[in-house]
């Protein structure tokens, strides 16, 4: 039993990271219908930038707390800005183009960012210092939980709820949903659709940057291709939850995390990815637009 609970804790921890990244994916998708394959690499970039800022901060003899605060603010701002620039350069020119052309542009951006990281920070792994974040471990009847895990879990839940309210209850949120349905019609309402898209990219990148920093703090190992793994998992989580749907992304991330650990822990470790995917495919066969995705029946 305690092993089982431990696995669930593990699953929720990794799942909430997927969820955080997946929400960014799903928001951009919701408005742009674009699979932003570069999103994962923004996550990786955030971790690298964060580490650099942190080292600078320590170099200036800032206290731990201030260094971390500095790291979060500078990185989040930088990555949000980066997301905006990425949209401007790589996606906006393709807004009227066939959807898959924008997807290929995103793949190009992913490749460029990933290798850009390698050129700047080198191909070797980088390691986050272990003492940045006060990490306390609790043993609760044999189950080990640490404070970073709880912080990530709470943060992703809070962000999800905040976003959900923002999207569903505010005027700008309604404008965002309208832009997601029909951009031209939204313009006719007086909505600055470009502004909305920029905001969405900034917000999505911001969430990605938080995810990246937590990956840095939690796993502490950075390598230039790490974004691909998190990006792919988050993308899959978003799809499973029903892409475009924020609670769906959260649910998808958690489920993916839990499937992963339960399959690896109880069924087969060497076949865990294959089995996880088999399960996901079965879910899609039953729910073709994801778990919370709306069935878009085509009116004929």
């Amino acid at each position: 039993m305690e092993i089982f609970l431990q696995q669930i804790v593990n699953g929720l921890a990794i799942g909430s990271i997927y969820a955080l990244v997946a929400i960014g994916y799903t928001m951009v998708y919701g408005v742009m219908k674009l699979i932003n394959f570069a999103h994962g690499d923004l996550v990786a970039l955030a971790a690298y930038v964060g580490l650099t800022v942190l080292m600078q901060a320590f170099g200036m003899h800032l206290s731990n707390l201030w260094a971390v605060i500095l790291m979060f603010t500078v990185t989040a701002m930088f990555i949000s800005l980066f997301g905006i620039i990425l949209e401007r350069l790589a996606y906006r020119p393709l807004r009227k183009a066939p959807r898959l052309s924008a997807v290929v542009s995103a793949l190009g951006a992913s490749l460029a960012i990933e290798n850009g990281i390698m050129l700047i920070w080198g191909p070797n792994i980088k390691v986050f210092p272990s003492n940045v974040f006060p990490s306390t471990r609790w043993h609760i009847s044999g189950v080990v939980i640490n404070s970073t895990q709880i912080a990530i879990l709470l943060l992703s839940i809070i962000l999800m709820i905040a976003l959900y309210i923002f999207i569903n209850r505010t005027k700008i949120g309604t404008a965002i949903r309208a832009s997601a349905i029909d951009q031209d019609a939204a313009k006719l309402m007086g909505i600055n659709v470009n502004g909305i898209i920029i905001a969405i990219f900034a917000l999505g990148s911001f969430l990605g940057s938080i995810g990246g920093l937590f990956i840095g703090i939690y796993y502490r190992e950075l390598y230039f291709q790490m974004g691909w793994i998190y990006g792919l998992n988050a993308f899959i989580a978003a799809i499973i939850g029903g892409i475009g749907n924020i609670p769906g992304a959260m649910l998808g991330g958690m489920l993916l995390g839990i499937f992963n650990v339960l399959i690896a822990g109880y069924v087969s470790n060497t076949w865990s990815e294959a089995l996880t995917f088999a399960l996901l495919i079965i879910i899609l066969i039953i729910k073709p637009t994801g778990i919370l995705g709306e069935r878009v029946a085509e009116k004929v």
Partner: protein
Amino acid sequence: METILQITDLEVSYGSVVALKDITFNVKSGEIVVLVGANGAGKTTTLRAISGLVKPKKGEIIFEGKRIDHLHPHKIVRLGISHAPEGRRIFGTLTVYENLMLGAYTQKQIDKNTLEWIYNLFPRLKERSKQLAGTLSGGEQQMLAVGRALMSKPKLLLLDEPSLGLSPALTKIIFDTVKQIRNSGVTILMVEQNAKAALKFANRGYVLEVGKIVLSGTSEELLSSQKVVEAYLGRK
């Protein structure tokens, strides 16, 4: 009557397709003007150019003395032009109420009076305010599209084929409403295939043919023009 909208030498193309060429016309404050023309003549394109959804290649669009042809659509809405586009384009997965609220997006605050006015024009919308707009019937959606466009309290309302696909009864209702809207002081520029009916309550009309204005005049003049009757209104 003063001119509220003046269009001069307008030219628009989609890629290599020239949709409008040397379009010049005006709309005066408080009137209903109808654009008539065959399919593909460029009526919709004219409205899209006014509301900024397509950028003209050449020419000027002046609204209340201010040049607007280089502005983004969302800026144009703020100036007081509202467009109920071809095909309704309501936000299907939002509620009726949310659609109306989006119509008032440019307003600082929702004006209760405007909302009441619209609910009076279309009581059905009040009844269905919580329903998802996509599940409304065609006619209801059309009401919503017009109502939504009115929420921004426009000075000029652009209507693109408001009767398309509506039952005869609803068509009458919509046309009556258009008259009412005009009477409340809103200027209207509309496109309508049901030209005969539209001209009956409009002040003036322009006839477009492959991107050019070929004829213009008051409603009576057009309704009695041999050419118009033959080409657009049909014998009978």
